């Protein structure tokens, strides 16, 4: 902890602590992990922007089927490059202490592939494909699945899930908090 503590000022650390769901020790731990992704650039500038491939070297993100969406959503520039602050933000949302509504908000953004603020049938299809991968469902099963989902969750019959509908369904799910977290 000695080395990385000198990187941040006391003010910065307390700011970060107030703005994320981490303690100071955890923030430093996150910074250490961030540093291991690309030690040289971070040595030079602690606010270095790492591009997407570097970020995806993190083992917790590497095998996740949604890793590209995660990096896009959390990067402030919108193209997948993340600074340490974006990284910290991401880890804070995925931490155990983040409340459910914050997680639901970001989950919605992650699953909304075309970024039109609704999870349409196309988005659902993309999610299913990412999750089932090679053992793909045949078309009939896929159709039925999408139909079932829309039947359950789509309240106003517009064939897509708005944020309110998504939140209404997901915030009742008992295992959402347990699955939607990453521990560093």
């Amino acid at each position, binding site marked *: 902890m000695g080395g990385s503590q000198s990187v941040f000022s006391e003010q910065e650390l307390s700011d970060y602590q107030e703005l994320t769901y981490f303690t100071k020790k955890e923030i430093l731990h996150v910074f250490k992990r961030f540093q291991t992704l690309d030690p040289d650039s971070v040595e030079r500038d602690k606010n270095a922007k790492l591009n997407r491939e570097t970020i995806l070297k993190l083992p917790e993100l590497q095998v996740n089927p949604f890793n590209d969406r995660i990096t896009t959503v959390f990067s402030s520039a919108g193209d997948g490059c993340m600074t340490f602050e974006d990284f910290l933000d991401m880890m804070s949302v995925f931490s155990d202490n983040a409340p459910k509504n914050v997680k639901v908000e970001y989950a919605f953004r992650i699953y909304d592939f075309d970024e039109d603020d*609704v999870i349409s049938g196309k988005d659902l299809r993309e999610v299913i494909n990412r999750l089932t991968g090679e053992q793909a469902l045949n078309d009939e099963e896929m159709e039925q699945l999408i139909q079932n989902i829309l039947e359950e969750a789509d309240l106003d019959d517009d064939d897509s899930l708005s944020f309110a509908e998504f939140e209404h369904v997901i915030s009742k799910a008992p295992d959402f908090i347990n699955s939607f977290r990453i521990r560093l």
Partner: protein
Amino acid sequence: MEFNEQSNLLRNGGDRPTTSYGGRAQTVRDAEEYSYDNSSFAVDYEGLSSSDLVESSRSRSKSILGERESASDILYRLRYSFLDPDLDSEHVISETQDCLTGQDKLRFKEDILEGIREVCLPMKQKLRIRRIITTDRVNRRRDQNSKKYISSKSRKNGSGFLHLWESSITKLTAYFGSTVASYFTFLRTLFFLNLVTGIILFSFIGVPQITTGEFLLDLDDKGKTFGHFGDLSYSMLFYGIYQDAVDGFSLPLSYFLTWIAVNLLTVLYLASSMYLRYRRSKLSDTGSDFPFTWSMFCYFDFTINTKAGVKDHLKAFCTDLKEKIREEKSLEVVAWLKKLQIYFLRLVSNVIVLGLLGGSGYLIYYVAQQEPDERDVDFNENLKELAKEIYERYRLAAVVAILKLVVPSIFKLLVKMESYQPRTELKFTLARTTFFHYASLIVFITSLTKKADCIDGQEPQITSTPSSVPSNHSTNNSTSCATNQCWENIVGEEIFKLILVDLGVCIAVGILFDVLIAVFVRTRTCCCKMDYSEFVVTSNVLDLVYGQGLVWLGLYFSPLMALVAVVKLFIVFYFRYFVARFANIPPKKMFRASRSGSFYLFLLLITWILCFIPVVYILIEKTPSVDCGPFAKKDRAYKVIDFLDSLDDLPSWLSWVKDALDYIATAIVIIPVIVVLILLVLYYRVKSSSYNALIQELRRQLVFERKIERKKVFAKALSVPALGSLGKTTGSAVTGEMSRKTSAVTFTA
């Protein structure tokens, strides 16, 4: 109007508009920053500025809040700032801040700072906002509060002891996911529970005993030969050694009260953690309301981060999904004859289950009643004799452990015959296995305590042991009913034996099934397509709960049993950890982890109740043995408490107390109390089911309202000529946004 243009219109929300879409839009803009949501509504859809939605919410907002925005408004706008990228949040905040003074300013700052964390903005922006707020150093009070908050948080996360084995559990989670990790965290909870129990018991009972200097009981000349473990039987591990007179410290009283206190602490802890978990789960156990949506969005476990783990997890997900889809389809009408066959099979299997339960209960009782052939283990004899002797001693424990192994597997096979749906299958097997465990525990303890009846002069059923009994041992058998027998020690030892045998069986099964199969698969010696064995969470958890039940049963008879349990759990943890890492794969069927968080505690609570009641019964009904243990001189163990003892001879003017207590214990009072309690339970059931009905009703209303709203807005949108060409897709995107805003607006209202 295409969608791009429309979004441009939205972007004009913050700036002063260069183009105005209708005069009404202009007037609406007077309300400036606050009602930007509504104004963009009016801007995009000309015909809509007179819509009820805009008007009502605008007037409502103006009347409630006046000219300035409050902290919650600003936070609210920040939340939806992605809809309005040009919103200059810092400008807004600094302006509002400058308008306020003194106490209002402080409160404003506090509100913003508390709420800013939950707003979904990039970190840089949040930092900037924070800098603006904290430039004047007015918030000394807030800093103090935050310091308290920080220190409590760090205490929670930094205490390394409570997070024992954390790194091992994380390594397992990376491959297996949260379900398997929940088993290990449950094990850790039990470890700490037993540790605390053991320490309390040791310090209040063990330490005074140590100060007397007597670690081992002297064998009398009477030739008492109780005790199977040699020296260990006479040590502090078991009840027998504790004396009834220690200088300046009433050991019997301490023994009794500490035992009661430990039990009360346990039940308090279990009940409170169940309560907290249940509250957090928000009553979401109203069945699986949204099975497909939940499995789509909540199934995938982000904590898995190895490639193999993700692959297995997704395979399980796919299987689960396909099953669910097929379940939907299979809710068809089954032919009448097939139904009859299914019901007949179910009846048969239930009868078999009952038969098994009854049979195993009787077997345990029968074996427990047989008197063991008490010979010392003589290692010089040949192997056959040795084996027989060991068998004699461990007969009861072996029977119970083997039954525990065999019967649940039979249940698993039986349930396949009944052709239930997979989830119901799991529930049935779980219920039957749990019931079997509890039944075996209860039969075990009650048949053991029959030995205590010896003291009252009853003859036990002495059945001749299978091996030939030499004549010099028959005297032992006949005097086993004599008064110089320490029955608590015997019971304690049987329980201890059972714990050891349980541990041994668990390790043996683990090695035989999991490790051997893994070796076969690795070296491919077996030609058949064998796969690694799965890590079955439910049966492992049931094993843990069963073991804990045994410990609770034995706490009265052997105060250091909790420390024995600590050692046992330690061994079990590492054994399971290594087996899981090297020989197991994640389970293919998921039993919902988080719901099981409170489910495991619930099982533990039921086990506690079922283990507390028999021991209390024993305390009340049986006389402690005369020549060993702290209660040797008393008629009943609880009479150690002087108040209860002196109930027998109270002064005459207080005798009504005793009469009252006696009266309360009779049937005339107990039965109405039970009836009233049952009525209360029924009342709460009815209340909760009516709440459920209310929830369904509200849900239907929600759907109805959304449909009506959407139809209204969509109709008006289509009525604008330029928008008439919008197809359904863009229309849905539009209404998607509108629904987000509509919901946003309705939330403010």
